[in-house]
């Protein structure tokens, strides 16, 4: 900044004659009127520069902020997807474990390993050093022997998650077939003008009346965009679980 005054001093004489000439034309007010505008003009460049810098800085900051916000958003999307994928894997494993630890399944497994219910236990009294009750081997116990003889277990083994899903699907298929049949019958009975009645198959609802339709704008948008960016192929499962922007969802 110290260079500036020197520069001003150097330029001043060059401009001086012109102003002096103009001043002559008007008369008396020469010295003051001439110097001031010159000084002003000389200081304009740093001011403009400053303004440009400020604007650039503001724009730059906003840009950086926006970029970081959207980057965080993407990170959020990927983390949410990851969380959902993990929760899903966890849910599947928990379901399987809960199914496997059902007493029916444990008993079946034990039987497959040729295990039988235990017999009469003996008890060692550590205080007195005595043994009460005579332990009998499992096979000698009447009930245990009987249990071993009865090959089949009575309590039905619960369906595994996959089997249950298959059962649910089958039920739906049957329901669908039944409604289709009923619709066909209805159509036959009242001619071809029953389009609306036949249209309402079981389990299907109109978007407007459904609570689930609330999710439509978001998800609808997602699939609309998929037209361009091909969902399903070329993406990992994690990526598929999230939307473009994490619109709040449960």
């Amino acid at each position, binding site marked *: 900044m110290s260079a500036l005054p020197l520069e001003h001093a150097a330029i001043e004489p060059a401009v001086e004659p012109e102003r002096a000439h103009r001043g002559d034309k008007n008369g008396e007010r020469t010295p003051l009127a001439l110097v001031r505008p010159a000084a002003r003009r000389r200081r304009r460049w740093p001011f403009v520069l400053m303004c440009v810098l400020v604007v650039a800085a503001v724009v730059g900051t906003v840009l950086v902020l926006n970029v970081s916000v959207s980057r965080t958003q993407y990170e959020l999307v990927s983390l949410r997807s990851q969380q959902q994928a993990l929760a899903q894997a966890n*849910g599947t494993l928990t379901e399987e474990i809960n199914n496997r630890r059902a*007493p029916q399944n444990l008993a079946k497994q034990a039987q497959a390993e040729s295990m039988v219910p235990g017999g009469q236990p003996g008890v060692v009294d550590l205080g007195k050093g005595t043994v009460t009750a005579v332990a009998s081997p499992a096979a000698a116990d009447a009930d245990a022997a009987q249990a071993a003889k009865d090959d089949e277990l*009575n*309590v039905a083994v619960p369906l595994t998650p996959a089997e249950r899903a298959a059962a649910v699907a089958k039920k739906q298929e049957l329901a669908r077939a039944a409604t289709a049949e009923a619709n066909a019958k209805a159509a036959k009975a009242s001619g071809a003008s029953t389009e609306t009645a036949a249209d309402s198959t079981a389990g299907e609802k109109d978007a407007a009346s459904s609570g689930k339709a609330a999710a439509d704008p978001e998800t609808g948008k997602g699939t609309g965009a998929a037209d361009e960016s*091909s969902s399903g192929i*070329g993406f990992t499962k994690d990526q598929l679980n999230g939307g473009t922007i994490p619109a709040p969802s449960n």
Partner: protein
Amino acid sequence: MATTHIKAPRTVRRMRFALVLVLLLLVTLMVRLVWIQGIDPANAAKAAVDARTTTQVIEPVRGDILDSEGQVLATSIVRYDLVVDQRQVKATYTKRDPVTKKRVSVDAVDDVNALADALGLDREAVSLAVFGKEGAAKKGYSVITKSITPEAKDKAEDVGFPYLQAIQTSQRSYPNGTLAGPLLGFMQTQLKETTDANGNKSTEEVSEGAEGLELSQNDALSGTPGERVYEKGADGVRIPSAPLTETAAVDGQDVKLTIDSDIQWRAMEAVMAKEKQFKAAWVNAVVMEVKTGRILALADSKSMDPNDPGATEAKYRTSTTVTQAIEPGSTGKIPTFALALDKGVVSPTSEFTVPNALKIGGETINDSLKHQTFDMTAAGVFARSYNTGTVQIGSKLTDQERYDFMRKLGIGSKIDIGLNGANAGLLADYKDWERRQRLTTMFGQGYTQTALHTASILQAVANDGVQVAPKLIDAYVDPDGTEHKTADGATQRVISSKTSATMRRMMETVVTDGTSTKMQIAGYRVGGKSGTAQAQGSDGKFDQHTSSFAGVVPIEDPQYLVVVTMQYPQGDWRTWSVGDTFTTIMKSVLSKNSVAPDSTEPNPFKVFVGENQKYGW
């Protein structure tokens, strides 16, 4: 010079005019601004915010039902509905080939067929769901399939059909199937119509408990829904800078039961085997902790799978142990003897002449098995379960005394353990007792009670005379894991401690020298009472029977009791026995809970008067 003089004011005027114009505009703007922002008569600001604001309900997670060891009996799992917006589906579209990484044109029909194959569904049905009916209006929400597993959803999404939407839903799951099914109950999904503040009606699917614990504990299990309020732009994307208020959903509490899954399973195995053996209508078992009234198992031979409640007859969707009241038969002698001993009208060694048939009060009472006339002790009458002896003892008490005592024990009142449909049983007022009913109520006929009533009475008599209200729900567990134990069951003394000790010894006599020698368990001292009641069959005739046994172990210091009840067994009544059912269940209870075998020998009363104790039946 003049021109400059005129020019200058004109410029000034022009400037002034411009200034006034600008000022006027500014003032107009200001007024408008104040009008809109400050006064806002049309409530425009609010309308704008309302238009942007979206309220989203956050559904709470329904609590689990757990057994006493924390094993999951009922839980909620994630499932998906696959839906499509038919209005958006195009016949052809482009997508990137996964191998060549090039964009290729795809026919929607190909993808839909691939989707149907991936889901294992009929191609035609899926095609109908995706494209809609020929000529019909396109639907915004068309369901392809419902409640599929996450894996199936992934498979479907792998097909890469761009219009496919997977909507997450929650489904109730009972991983143990029929185990404890009638206790857990089940859920029901109903369409519920709601009207919001603006009078708009909307229907939504609401799932609620419909039976059993799912019903009775619905409030604790379901939790409180939360709410998320945010503003979104025209493109449906949330405005990040706009305020977001979120009230978190409060998840439902877990309900922890006193049921032990392993014992429940063992009991179910045993009662199902028993039902098969005698082709009975049903067999059930109650397992209870004597000192606390905690129920360890309520087993039914016909047990509902809550995953598919429709597959089970309505009668068996609830537990017969609480819904089916039956005439108890000889287990009903327990109240009569306990009261007679407590009142001091008899002692265990009081002597009675017990004939096969006895004329008393204008009625003839018979024993089920013809026998010679015996000189027996009161304990002997109890052990051999002779009706003729019992009515002699019961007659020493007034009807009111017996009625009041039976009421006090809980007969005729509902036992509330959190299961709906609990049966109170039927006990007519003693003033309304008929001549014969006066006598039959002494040995367990002429009134009804549930298996749980029988268990509760045995519990009171065995537990030093103190009855503890049965308990099925152990605790409520908050989502953060804090356990809130339920209050201990209410207690009441029904007989003296001394009478309880005498009754226990008499019950041991039943097992050592009486009707129930099959109920002995090696190493343990067992006490109990058997019962074979005449029962009214479904046709209304008294040609059916109910066979039962209620026993406690160890008799000196009772820990556990098991009551087994068999309804309508078929075949020869002499062979009917629930003995092995009792011992099987009791053994599993004793070993699971590490009850040490008894070190003392049985101490029964004398059955007959005199030295000879060996008489035939």
